[in-house]
């Protein structure tokens, strides 16, 4: 891969360390004082390696989208580091940020809202090239090439977004993100707005592009079956924290965090016989408010495992926050649960 030769395989291209993002809660009085904070992301750390995909999964409100935006500095992080190619994104100047974004791009969830309806598809894809002064001399040919790269017909370049289907629009968004030949692509729920028959084509495209261009992906999604299919490594988020992270096989075969287990068991399988026989782990209640997260382990209020623990053990969940560490579950398999290992 020509795009990866500057980096050795063992070195992460993107390292996120203790990333925190808080949104202030303002009072409703005339003087809008800050009266609290929504802890959207509370100390998230992970690495992404060249040519690999990290799947970031979790339910709505767990902070996965906020994480992806903070990485690109679209929403500045409250604290923490985002080291991309050896430099901290959170401390970059405006000019440096712009140069950084040549190498790291984002594809948004909603293909209907993320494309300007008033300009043609060619212009949409050419926009990043123009912004970075790369359009003159072959920009047009490059746009045509990008269109065929993402599986669209380049002859349709002079059409407008509304003439394309949802899946095709998402491909336009991908072509735009690829225009500057980035090394990392942040994909924020790229297929969740699409019908299943269309979704599969976009997933295949993303896999092909990664093989061809050696891209690294941060794949943010709520659909675990899609993540399992596309990711090399998975991080599961709950209420602003990563609760378990492992290589994909390991996570799905040997998950030990009660939340991951419940999440996996809740996914319906399109196989009637298996579905009839399956035992579900039902999680009680709803996600607590991120403005006032529970003490200790954030999952403890809903945890099915905690209900089976002795009183002293259960108290530990409330008093002591479990660290995301290796608990002997396998190589590179980390879990944030005091009792992750105690189960078989």
């Amino acid at each position, binding site marked *: 891969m*020509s*795009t990866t030769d500057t980096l050795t395989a063992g070195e992460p291209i993107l390292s996120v360390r203790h990333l925190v993002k808080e949104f202030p809660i303002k009072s409703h009085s005339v003087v809008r004082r800050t009266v609290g904070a929504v802890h959207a992301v509370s100390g998230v750390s992970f690495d992404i390696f060249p040519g690999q995909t990290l799947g970031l999964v979790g*339910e709505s409100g767990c902070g996965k989208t906020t994480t992806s935006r903070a990485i690109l500095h679209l929403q500045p992080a409250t604290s923490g580091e985002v080291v991309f190619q050896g430099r901290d994104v959170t401390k970059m100047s405006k000019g440096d940020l712009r140069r950084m974004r040549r190498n790291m791009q984002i594809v948004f969830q909603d293909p209907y809202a993320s494309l300007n309806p008033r300009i043609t598809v060619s212009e949409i894809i050419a926009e990043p090239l123009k912004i970075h002064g790369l359009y003159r*001399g*072959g920009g047009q*040919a*490059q746009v*045509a*090439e*990008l269109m*065929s*790269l993402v*599986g*669209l*017909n*380049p*002859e*349709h370049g002079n059409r407008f977004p509304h*003439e394309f*289907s949802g899946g*095709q629009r998402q*491909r336009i968004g991908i072509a735009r993100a690829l225009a500057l*030949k980035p090394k990392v692509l942040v994909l924020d729920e790229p297929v969740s707005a699409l019908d*299943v*028959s*269309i979704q*599969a*084509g976009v*997933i*295949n*495209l993303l*896999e092909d*592009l990664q093989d*061809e261009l050696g891209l690294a992906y941060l794949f943010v999604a*709520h659909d675990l*079956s899609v993540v*399992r*299919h596309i990711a090399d490594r998975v991080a599961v988020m709950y209420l602003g924290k990563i609760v378990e992270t492992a290589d*994909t*096989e390991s996570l799905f075969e040997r998950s030990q965090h009660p939340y991951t287990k*419940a*999440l996996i*068991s*809740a*996914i*319906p*399988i*399109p*196989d*009637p*016989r*298996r*579905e*009839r*026989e*399956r*035992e*579900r782990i*039902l999680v009680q209640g*709803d996600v607590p408010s991120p403005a006032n997260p529970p003490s200790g382990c954030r999952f403890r209020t809903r945890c099915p495992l905690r209900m089976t623990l002795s009183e002293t053990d259960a108290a530990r969940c409330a008093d002591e926050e479990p660290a995301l560490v290796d608990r002997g579950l396998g190589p590179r398999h980390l879990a944030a649960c005091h009792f992750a290992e105690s189960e078989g």
Partner: protein
Amino acid sequence: MSVEKPSFGAGEELLAVRDLTVTFPTGDGDVHAVRGVNYTLRRGEVLGIVGESGSGKSVSSLAVMGLLPKTARVQGSITFQGEELLGLSERKLMKVRGKKIAMIFQDPMTSLNPVYKIGYQLEEAILAHNDLPKQQARKQALELLETVGIPFPEKRIDQFPHEFSGGMRQRVVIAIAMANNPDVIIADEPTTALDVTVQAQVLESLRVAQRETGAAMVLITHDLGVVAGQADRVLVMYAGKPVEIGSVDDIYYNPRMPYTLGLLGSLPRLDANRAERLTPIQGAPPSLLSLPPGCPFMPRCPLAKEVCAEQEPELLPTDDPAHDAACHYSALLAGRKAQEVFVASAADTALPESYGAEIAGATGEITTVPEQPKAEQAE
């Protein structure tokens, strides 16, 4: 999850839909949203209706409830326990709605009234069909909230919808649907707006609702996983028409319509080999404004031949009389896998209205930049 084999064909016939068509006149012409739907629903049975957006699955159910806008032209017949519902006066329909047939809508954020307390809305549903003192209605409302698994119902009953989370609200909607012991519950994408762990809770509540009321259920969804675990029979819709109907096992293990097969092949599954390529269906569903003659799936179908462009296939029994499919070549699909029929391609070149141009895979090379002539990729 119940392990017993789904049984059907037994219970009394509750709901029968015959040749239902729904047309919406618009400025651009008639939109044929539903083009001939037939099904029967028996007591205790769960019928899953599956299809992608715009396939007419919701519209056909709104027609059953008589909830379509006045501009819609509805034809055919919908009978409930022998009584024709189409053309019934609003007054008579109100006696059926909520009492005999109840509906659960997709979005629990908008299907509850934000200015009334949960308790009031439940009592309203109970009192609409029963002559009861208020206290008794309240007692029933409390019981209902408990049945659908809402913690602290005594406290919750006096709260407003905005104090409930999405999953909780959907359970309140389910409780309202259960309020009058209906014979049929129509659930229109009841879990689409919810997270998976909450979806599991709500599906559990739905199962409880069905068990407690003994009602038959029509479960409308685009999620083949949800249907697999819930339904006894499945109806697959495409472009306003049923294209396949059969027992849940037949549809999943022995699909006889290329569209069903394609849908199953395009799903990433938790129980599949990760390295296996997905097989998307090429193209997009047709516009319901101007459907060409022939099979509406023809432009996307890898098996299509001339006859498919000329003649729209009828929904006919396959070799199994309880399993119908609308495909000229349904016999060819016996025992075939999606990977054998569909190509695991990554391209999507045809614009929604045109079909033809094909570019195989992602063949362009981004690193070799300018000189390449445009014609080379456009072949």
